[in-house]
């Protein structure tokens, strides 16, 4: 087991030393700054205007969800961009040769790297998630419902995408891995929207297509579940957006995502263990 911790440690150190995590946090800080300015402008706009507390809450709660949705998108993209090279790149460059010939099983190399990235991505989501909520609370006093539950679902979404890039990385080059991962995430993203649209249009075909897209990669389902748990039922039902409570993924969808994650990791480790390096 020692090998796993050595690999996890070197992965985290790489993230820090190569400024991967810091650059990602800089991007998140920029995002938070824009978000804070937007909220402030919104608050100034509302000042002196006759408005019911209910409407005001709806708008400010909606702004918070916009911030969290952007934070979620950024975390998913960062997950893909930072992790596509870790296995694929080391295999194609030959860096893996000096490592895989040490007394450490290949599954431990895989698990160590995956743990390291999971730690880095969890930290990134925690910082950006807390930052977004903190900025919104400071400007408007609005807090999400069940923030911890939402955080866990968003983190699980990123880990699911991470498992996808690791799985693809055992087969394909860095570039192919990135293109495929973004493409599959795009299908999942579209699936989420199709399910939202079908909630209004009541089209059975669109529902089916949306469900199939979400089954291909259930990452977007996790975001929609997170959006559902972080809003009051009233707030979630009043808009047509990525966080509207139109088509809410069930707990079974979350369980499917967890099983999907386990299967991806299992297949990836099996293939990495058996392939020539």
């Amino acid at each position, binding site marked *: 087991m020692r090998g796993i911790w*050595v690999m996890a440690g070197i992965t985290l150190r*790489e993230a820090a030393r190569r400024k991967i995590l810091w650059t990602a946090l800089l991007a998140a800080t920029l995002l938070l700054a824009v978000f804070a300015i937007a909220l402030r402008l919104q608050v100034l706009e509302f000042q002196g205007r006759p408005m019911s507390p209910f409407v005001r809450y709806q708008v400010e709660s909606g702004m918070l969800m916009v911030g969290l949705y952007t934070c979620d998108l950024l975390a998913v993209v960062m997950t893909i961009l930072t992790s596509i090279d870790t296995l694929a790149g080391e295999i194609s460059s030959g*860096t893996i*040769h000096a*490592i*895989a*010939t*040490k*007394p450490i099983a290949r599954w431990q190399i895989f698990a160590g790297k995956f743990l390291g990235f999971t730690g880095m991505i969890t930290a990134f989501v925690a910082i950006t998630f807390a930052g977004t909520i903190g900025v919104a609370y400071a400007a408007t006093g609005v807090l999400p419902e069940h923030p911890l539950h939402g955080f866990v679902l968003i983190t699980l979404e990123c880990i699911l995408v991470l498992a996808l890039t690791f799985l693809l990385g055992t087969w394909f080059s860095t570039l192919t891995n990135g293109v495929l991962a973004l493409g599959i995430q795009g299908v999942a993203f579209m699936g989420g929207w199709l399910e939202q649209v079908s909630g209004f249009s009541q089209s059975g075909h669109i529902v089916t297509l949306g469900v199939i897209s979400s089954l291909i990669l259930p990452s977007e389902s996790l975001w929609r579940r997170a959006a559902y748990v972080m809003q009051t039922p009233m707030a979630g039902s009043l808009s047509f957006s990525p966080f509207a409570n139109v088509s809410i993924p069930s707990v079974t969808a979350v369980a499917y995502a967890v099983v999907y994650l386990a299967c991806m990791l299992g297949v990836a480790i099996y293939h990495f263990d058996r392939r*020539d390096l």
Partner: protein
Amino acid sequence: MLLGLVRPTGGEATVLGAPAGDVTVRRRIGFLPEDFRFYDWLTASELLRFHGRLCGMSEGKLQQRIPDVLELVGISVHADRRLRGFSKGMLQRLGLGQALIHEPDIIFLDEPTSGLDPMGRRMVRDVIRAQRDRGATVFLNSHLLSEIEVTCDRVAFIKDGELVAEQELKTFSPDGFRVTVHAANVSPEALAGLSRWTSTLSAAAGALSFGVTSKDVLPDILRYLVNSGADVFRFTPEPLSLEDLFVKLVGEDCGL
């Protein structure tokens, strides 16, 4: 395959009594890949610490061993420098260091002198001899046969994945010579007559080159050429080298 990087399609092999590729036995194996790459954001000391920890070495042991290994491969002064700024030769030295960090019993070195200057090549030879003297077995894989000739105890030639010959180099005394003759007025008949001593004759621009199996025939050949009317300016016999043996065994253009 012996290290587990490539899976065999058939057959079986053992290393130190364990099946080839066994994880546990790799604790006793060191490896320098030919086309090696390392994390260039680490310093030389950090890289050795990382590989040492992968080999299960304790922090206390590493504290002692890392300076020794850096000294051994001649890059002590660069211990805290990031690999990004290292030359190919310095990386090659460090690669050798990571292969030796855990004092393995078997060491596989794939083209260890590529990219090294003459001092670096001498250092590699000294390191290999030191490892041999402490009881380790070193597999030196190289196309630089002159390096092998001065470093190794035994040599094996592989062609198309098949072992074609093995040779003890301590007792290597090839039974033959390559002769180079610079001469003028060598008639076609005289050239044809050389076939009684050699079958590997080549002639170009006033120089003849051929191999013979014994030095006893050299005076006869020289006498024959002079008597046939040739003006001989230089007659140079040289013992066959390992390279000649290689060419003889695997052919002129083996496509390796």
